[in-house]
């Protein structure tokens, strides 16, 4: 799995850091997404998918391969 974020559209909702805190963090000064794990460990795949599905600004893309 490879995770990609498009931070330019991020609204800093915190949904990704809520559901997948091992994969996503947020910048302190504006809440914008920080990708902690471009290739998350297997046990975090499900939460990474949930974060991508729930991101209000559709900022997160997940690539199966990679």
């Amino acid at each position: 799995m490879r995770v990609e974020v498009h931070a330019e559209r991020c609204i800093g909702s915190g949904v990704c850091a809520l559901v997948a805190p091992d994969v996503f963090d947020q910048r302190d000064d504006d809440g914008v997404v920080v990708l902690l794990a471009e290739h998350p460990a297997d046990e975090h795949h499900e939460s990474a998918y949930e974060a991508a599905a729930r991101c209000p600004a559709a900022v997160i893309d997940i690539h199966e391969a990679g």
Partner: protein
Amino acid sequence: MTAVSEDETGALPPLPLPGERNCPFGPPPEYEDLRAGHPVIKVACPTGVDAWLVSRYADVRYVLGEPELFSNRAGVAAHILLGFGGRDVPVGEGEFPRMDGAEHLRFRRHMAPEVSNMKRINQLRPLVQKIVDRQLDVLANTPPPVDLYSAFARPVTTAVIAELLDVPEADRPLFQRAAEALNAGASSAEDVAAALRPLFEYLYMMVVTRRADPGDDVISRMIVRSDQTDRPFTDTELVSMSAALLLAGYDTTASLISHGIVALLEHPQELRRLRADPALAGNAAEELVRYLGVGGGLLREVTRDTEIAGQPVKAGDFVVVAIQSANRDGALHPDGDRLDIGRASGAHLGFGHGPHQCVGQQLARLELTAVLGTVPRRIPTLRLAVPFEEIRFKTNSAVLGPVAVPAAWDEIVPALETEG
């Protein structure tokens, strides 16, 4: 289908809204037929605007997720509330809920560190727990029956937001009155403006004072951070953000707390599950937002000719997305009308979706989770003090929920050491 079809005169059917006759937890019953047969239909809204009503989960999510096609410019509640914008009303300085694109993003990213950064939220957890426990200690010394809305839910949410903004205790009734006027649909635009004026004057003084002498509170930090940005925020913009946090932050969450408590008391099996396993509180909070959230729907304005689920809509048309209906759609959960605090309900639209998704959602989750993890344990004998049928629910408001929750109990047990 009679309630939602055009009559012989060609008049539009009315927007289905919560009413006393309906189940107080769910969307009006018309929505089941709308989702099945008329997923996009023109309706007449209470404030006089006509709008396309969108009722299916996938379509509601689509509209909210395409802000370039569906603008916030008219104001999200202008279909049900006066004094809330409207197409012909200019967007005020700092009125970010009615802005789109980069203009809106500038405000969201300035508020995010205070209310939606998860590191910050996790730091606030002990404070919120302490506020919940203190208010339950107050209740423990009050002989029941007690109204849990005015004597528990509102004091808790008021204390949380007032602590964040550092509003002295004596000044808090000011923003309670303003929020009540804002959320009561029956008011005129002039009444709303009159009720808000003292609050805006108060917040303006607060911004001026803290600009001169910043403290360790949300307003001071927003001022300090603003000066480090490319385009610092004006005093009016800072007042606007502070007012949004104050007004949106306390009555919506207080109503959800009291609505949620009533819903759980009417679903005793779910309440027992929660009492047995307080670790379910976070999940229960999410499920209650899905089950109860945003009864009046949200308004958008079409920016260019397009389609919603095959229905052509024109630039300038209004669209109302029925959040409650979407959250009950069988496409999201086959048993969507059932309250199930154990389900994975995170894909709901109870906080909205898209760039305008609720800015205070993490704070709401934090408060609701603390309440749901604490109240069933500390008040094991909690019950309604009147028959359920006598509980009255708000119908003329942007924020739904019970008018009052008369409750009784045998005993309130002390807080856990770790909770304090």
